[in-house]
């Protein structure tokens, strides 16, 4: 399994570098912008004007809290970074095994003495590690900004908590995408479907603050359970985090079982395999 983890990490270097640089730049930019905003009285006036003129919009974007580092990050950073990382992890999940199968390399790897279990969990662990590293880069970039910022300051551990909360939800999207990759004929379909779910979750969560009808729908939106400002102020709710980890584990176990029992293709895209769900409950597939 160690060889699989190492090989997967090696293959993820490029993606990690590209996405990591992007997220780091974003973190540094957001931290630096806070100083500019605090220094600009016109900006504060604009936000106050919004709060009076368009209270729903101001509530949706929590404009009254933007004058504090926590509020600023909540509105300007954590409001859309989950969408960015969400799109990254759905790609990771869909590609985890389905890409190698479509490229035809899985066939050759599995002809060697590596079990499907070792390959699956080796890849899963490596990609979990990649997601963690990406989030640590994002976290570290915000911390780095604090070294020169006059106003932007949050204790390092407190700042880590929103990322921990985000990790649970991002892992949900990753395992869901992995599961889709096991069920759907092509990884692009798995990626597209899980990407759509990330997008839907993002917009439903965002709009539910302003549109009353969406409040009940938002209960089913994973990103609605993302704790950012509350995690920094009051600490992380381990109940929801634990719940997401448990769901992720169940999804990963189903995907693992599907991978265990399936025929490995020589290459290319496959056909619909929804019937493979039945095989999870079958005593013996052979």
């Amino acid at each position, binding site marked *: 399994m160690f060889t699989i983890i190492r090989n997967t990490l090696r293959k993820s270097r490029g993606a990690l570098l590209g996405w990591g640089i992007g997220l780091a730049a974003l973190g540094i930019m957001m931290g630096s912008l806070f100083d500019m905003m605090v220094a600009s009285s016109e900006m504060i006036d604009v936000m106050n004007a919004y709060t009076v003129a368009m209270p729903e919009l101001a509530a949706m974007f929590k404009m009254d809290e933007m004058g504090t580092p926590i509020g600023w990050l909540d509105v300007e950073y954590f409001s859309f970074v989950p969408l960015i990382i969400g799109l990254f992890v759905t790609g990771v999940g869909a590609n985890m095994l389905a890409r190698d199968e479509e490229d035809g390399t899985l066939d*050759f790897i599995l002809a060697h003495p*590596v079990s499907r279990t070792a390959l699956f969990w080796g890849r899963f662990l490596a990609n979990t590690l990649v997601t963690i590293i990406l989030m640590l880069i994002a976290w570290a970039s915000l911390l780095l900004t604090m070294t020169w910022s006059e106003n932007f300051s949050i204790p390092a551990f407190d700042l880590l908590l929103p990322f921990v909360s985000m990790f649970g939800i991002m892992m949900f999207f990753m395992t869901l995408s992995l599961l889709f990759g096991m069920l759907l004929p092509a990884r692009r379909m798995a990626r597209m479907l899980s990407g759509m779910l990330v997008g839907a979750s993002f917009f439903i969560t965002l709009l539910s603050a302003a549109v009353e009808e969406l409040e009940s729908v938002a209960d089913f939106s994973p990103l609605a359970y993302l704790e950012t400002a509350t995690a920094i102020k009051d600490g992380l709710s381990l109940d929801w985090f634990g719940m997401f980890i448990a769901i992720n584990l169940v999804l990963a176990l189903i995907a693992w079982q599907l991978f265990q029992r399936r025929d490995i293709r*020589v290459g290319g895209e496959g056909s619909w395999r929804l019937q493979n769900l039945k095989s999870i409950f079958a005593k013996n597939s052979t």
Partner: protein
Amino acid sequence: MHDNNAIQVKDLVKFYGKVQALNGVNLEVKRGEIYGFLGPNGAGKTTTIRCMLDLIRTQGGSISILGLNPNAEPEVIKARVGYLPGELHMDENMTAKQIFRFFNRLRGNRSDWKFIEELSERLKLELKNPIKNFSKGNKQKVGIVVALMHRPELLLLDEPTGSLDPLMQQEVLRMLVEARDNGATVFLSSHIISEVQAIADRVAIIRKGIIVEVVETTALLKRSMRQVRIRFQYPTEAEEIYNLPGVELIAKDDSMGVSLKFEGEMDTLIKTVAKYSVNDFETERASLEEIFLAYYEGQEDN
């Protein structure tokens, strides 16, 4: 299951959806032999091999590889087997050396690096270039080294020399014979009959997912038809020759020359021809390819 069999397949059935790819395949491959597995595209060769490695799951029948069940102990079997897929794909960004290192690590670093270098040298393989810069033939060489590098007990090779030039084909065939001489069993699937003819001890012919013939290569060639050309000294009507069982008259060049197809014991033909005054007598054995095609044409006719 017999211990002296490297491969034993019994009544193997495999469906892809509603399409039956294998329809009760039976195979017995003895340890230490080179076994050719012939059939046209889509006959079930690759499917049979992939079942042996537990890459795809069967719907019926049983398989024993080196005395073990691939469904129960796939990793143990794969540790002792070298495999070359018919459609070889590898991580294109890795160099040949990195590929060898990766697969060697998967095998618990069992391979001798000197042996890997020796194999690479024999195949004139450049180790430091990324796979994406390799020609199809060079990629095939990488696959061959990966299959051979841990000196496996059993080699499962799906179209091993397909993309190689004739010189490299000969080198690879020599490597396989050496592996056999060192105790390995070689199971060689191909639709290129010449490579099977060159090295295989026995041949199985698969057609539409069922084994239609298993025969020793030499016996197949021996019993097979020959082309015969006779040049008589004088204009001759050699009716006795033409009426021999197994003789088919192809052409009369003129009253002194004839071309025949003959299937049977040569002794009978030679003794009959000896009754005539003959200037020249040529026989040419049909290649396995011609036999194979004749066999298939016969099957199709039926």
